[in-house]
């Protein structure tokens, strides 16, 4: 059965480990990477479906499947999936984001066949019935309460995406709006499953201690008969150029102002994404970073500052998150951020500063690939979000090539106020009634 596979690509993933991508006749992808340091496996199934594939009014659908997929199938009664995995000592989990959903099994090496059987079963034969959906709907609403309604950082994140994007599906939260989660209808849930959970929309990633031929045979045996689905065309939504700064403020039961700033940034596949990675590190990615030194140490205007680029396929955001210190406020911090960004153009980083950021990126990269789960997640993300796991190597090449002049150019291009959205959570005052109705948008 191994002959049914076509080898498409091969590249190193970490020291002494090579990843190979194979394709089955029905479109199913397989990325296999042998890493025999421990008798374990990371077996992950990545689907090219995330919150960007939902429609307004039915947000949260992709994430709901992250829950439903652990339920009953035609062969497995409720709860059996988890019991079979846990009896081995393994664990199962899943994650959903804008561009993908993936299902993760960590298994003893001897249980490869079990893992393949379970994953193929739930890709084909999930039972979607009323009681199970309602139970998971309640769980998801509680997850949303914990992560958004009662969590100021979750609220900031959600509001940033909702206001930074006006047309692109990145504007709604992956967990979904509460009213949408409550309204998702069973027929549409079933249709979503039939549409997206198909071999030609999936890549299986296996990293660890296994026999490659046995792996390919098992997967061909369990997936080879599944027909490909007719996948909907990719969304044509293009986010229009942002022309002016957007600011959102709302009171929350917190001690000091918290703010989240999102600057429009390129997608992860663009060369400038790597340049902005370096910019993020120079601004707030390490103890000696410029913004950290200015805001936290010198001015003591913030208790923390963090910078991150969101690794999205389409144009995304470079985010600055700040918690202000007692006696300081968001406006003061924003003014300081603007001065530091301007200084990054007027007083560009030295070559040594850029090399520092590259050294930190190198450490981060190796650290992220230091175990089988990390390797599998990197392979799955780049394959699913960007179409080829070898994009990881492309990113490394882009990072290596970044110069101080690139940094100054990227700052001038991307870190401008007209391209940014700012969300501010402010402490509630006194006994005034305050809720989301008090939100102000400028």
């Amino acid at each position, binding site marked *: 059965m191994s002959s049914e596979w076509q080898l498409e690509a091969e590249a190193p993933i970490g020291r002494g480990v090579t990843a190979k991508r194979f394709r089955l006749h029905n479109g199913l992808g397989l990325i296999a990477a042998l890493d025999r340091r421990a008798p374990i496996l990371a077996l992950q199934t990545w689907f090219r479906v995330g919150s960007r594939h939902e429609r307004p009014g039915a947000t949260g659908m992709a994430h709901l499947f992250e829950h439903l997929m652990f339920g009953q199938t035609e062969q497995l009664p409720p709860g059996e999936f988890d019991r079979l995995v846990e009896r081995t000592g393994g664990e199962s989990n899943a994650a959903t984001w804008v561009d993908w959903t993936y299902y993760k099994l960590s298994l003893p090496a001897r249980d490869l066949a079990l893992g393949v059987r379970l994953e193929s079963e739930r890709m084909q034969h999930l039972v979607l019935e009323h009681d199970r959906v309602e139970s998971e709907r309640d769980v998801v609403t509680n997850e949303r309460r914990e992560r958004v309604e009662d969590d100021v950082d979750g609220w900031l994140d959600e509001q940033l995406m909702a206001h930074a994007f006006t047309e692109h599906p990145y504007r709604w939260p992956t967990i979904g709006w509460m009213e949408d989660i409550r309204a998702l209808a069973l027929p549409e849930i079933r249709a979503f499953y039939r549409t997206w959970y198909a071999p030609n929309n999936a890549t299986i990633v296996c990293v660890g201690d296994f026999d490659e031929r046995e792996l390919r045979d098992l997967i061909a045996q369990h997936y080879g008969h599944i027909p490909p689905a007719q996948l909907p065309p990719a969304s044509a939504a293009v986010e229009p150029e942002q022309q002016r700064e957007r600011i959102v403020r709302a009171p*929350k039961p917190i001690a000091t102002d918290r703010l989240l700033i999102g600057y429009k940034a390129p997608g992860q596949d663009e060369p400038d994404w790597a340049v902005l990675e370096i910019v993020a590190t120079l601004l707030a990615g390490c103890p000696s970073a410029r913004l950290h030194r200015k805001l936290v140490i010198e001015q003591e205007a913030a208790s923390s500052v963090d910078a991150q680029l969101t690794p999205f396929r389409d144009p995304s955001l470079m985010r600055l998150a700040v918690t202000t210190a007692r006696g300081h406020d968001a406006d003061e911090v924003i003014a300081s951020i603007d001065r530091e960004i301007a200084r990054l153009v007027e007083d560009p980083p030295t070559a040594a500063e850029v090399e*520092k950021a590259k050294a930190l990126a190198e450490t981060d990269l190796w650290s992220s690939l230091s175990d089988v789960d990390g390797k599998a997640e990197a392979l799955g993300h780049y394959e699913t979000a960007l179409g080829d796991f070898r994009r990881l190597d492309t990113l490394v090449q882009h990072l290596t090539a970044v110069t101080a002049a690139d940094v100054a150019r990227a700052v001038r291009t991307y870190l401008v106020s007209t391209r940014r959205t700012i969300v501010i959570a402010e402490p509630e005052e006194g006994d005034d009634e305050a809720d989301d109705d008090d939100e102000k948008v400028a």
Partner: protein
Amino acid sequence: MQVVVEASPDTPLVWFDIAIRGGASADPVGIEGLHRHAALLARRGAGTRVRAVLDETLDGLGAALEVGVSRDSLSISGLALSRHADAVIALAADILAAPRFDEDEHARLLRETPQVLDEIRDDDGALATRWFDWLCSPGHPYGRTSLGTEGSLAKIRREDAIALWRREVVADNLVIGLAGDVDDARARSLAQRLVERLPAGAAIAQPEDTGERARGRRAFLVDKPDRTQAQLRIGHLATRYGHPDTPAIAVAEAILGGMFSSRLMQEIRVKRGWSYGAGCALRRSRLPHWFEVWTAAAIEVAGPAVALTLELYADYAANGPTEEEVDFARSYLIGAMPFHVATARQRMQLAVRDAVFELPAGYTAKLPEALGQLAAADVRAACARHFHPDDAVTVAVTTAETARAALEAANAGPITVVRHDEY
């Protein structure tokens, strides 16, 4: 000095963990937060390098060097590209042997730490844990906050931090672990460089278990406005990790709340949809510590969730698990061990932790052998010995106006309402 080495050339990185015995539980009464303060201050300048120079040097090497505090130890954890490991170790050695304890950094840190308290007050889960730690077993060394309070922070003097460092940072009080792209001989040479400038001195005397388990159920409602949920912590002082019953307790906690198939997860999440999750664990420490159940329930079912949790816990303590449950959990725990020791870094960290807990070498890694010999009766006996539902403390971070009446009906004991920002 104890040294643990786990060599593995598969990634060009070296990790090191330095544990200094005597963590937050050894803070003087009334000066809670001193150990944390001393460790953070030591990281802010050493030898000839002031904070900014030290940060710049470490970042330039692509390295990370972080300090932390647990109940039982201070920690200095490093990560370096293997080609820079010698340079990063030299900087860590400076921090150990020659921290500057600059006056301006001491004053700045005293201004910063209360803001960490603010961040905890903004985070319901962290807030619930902070209150639970304080209220679970008053007087116990682990009940004192590692971060400090506004009152205790005001009493921290620079001289106290310096004295603590001189007293506790001595070679025989350290456990050093190195892992990654470094062979055994080089690793031991690096460990020696970490301690070669330290004064001689014995391991410090650590706090003893003076805490009596508080008797009777008690409930504390930590009142915070605008909540849609209640963050819940329920538990009591139990035993120590390393007690002869540890394997049996590991099985018991897995069955009650350590797996997705566990009783708490099934009853609270799967059957009722009341929470995103529910679990339990005995906190791992050198001394007896809390057995704790946690969940976060929608505010309208917070009372029933507390009542159900206490019922489940009482039934479990009285009757223990079934044979089938024990068989299943044993299989899970034995099968899971390879995931906990898969990388050199994991093996090193477990070994360092065992040493800090004063356990025999390889204690945790060898637990599967003991698990394989356990009978269901052993687990039931351990439940009866160590689980005390009638003495459970319940902490709920939620909005009192909405949740109080239902919590009063939950049979959790007399309720005390406190403001979320008063501790």
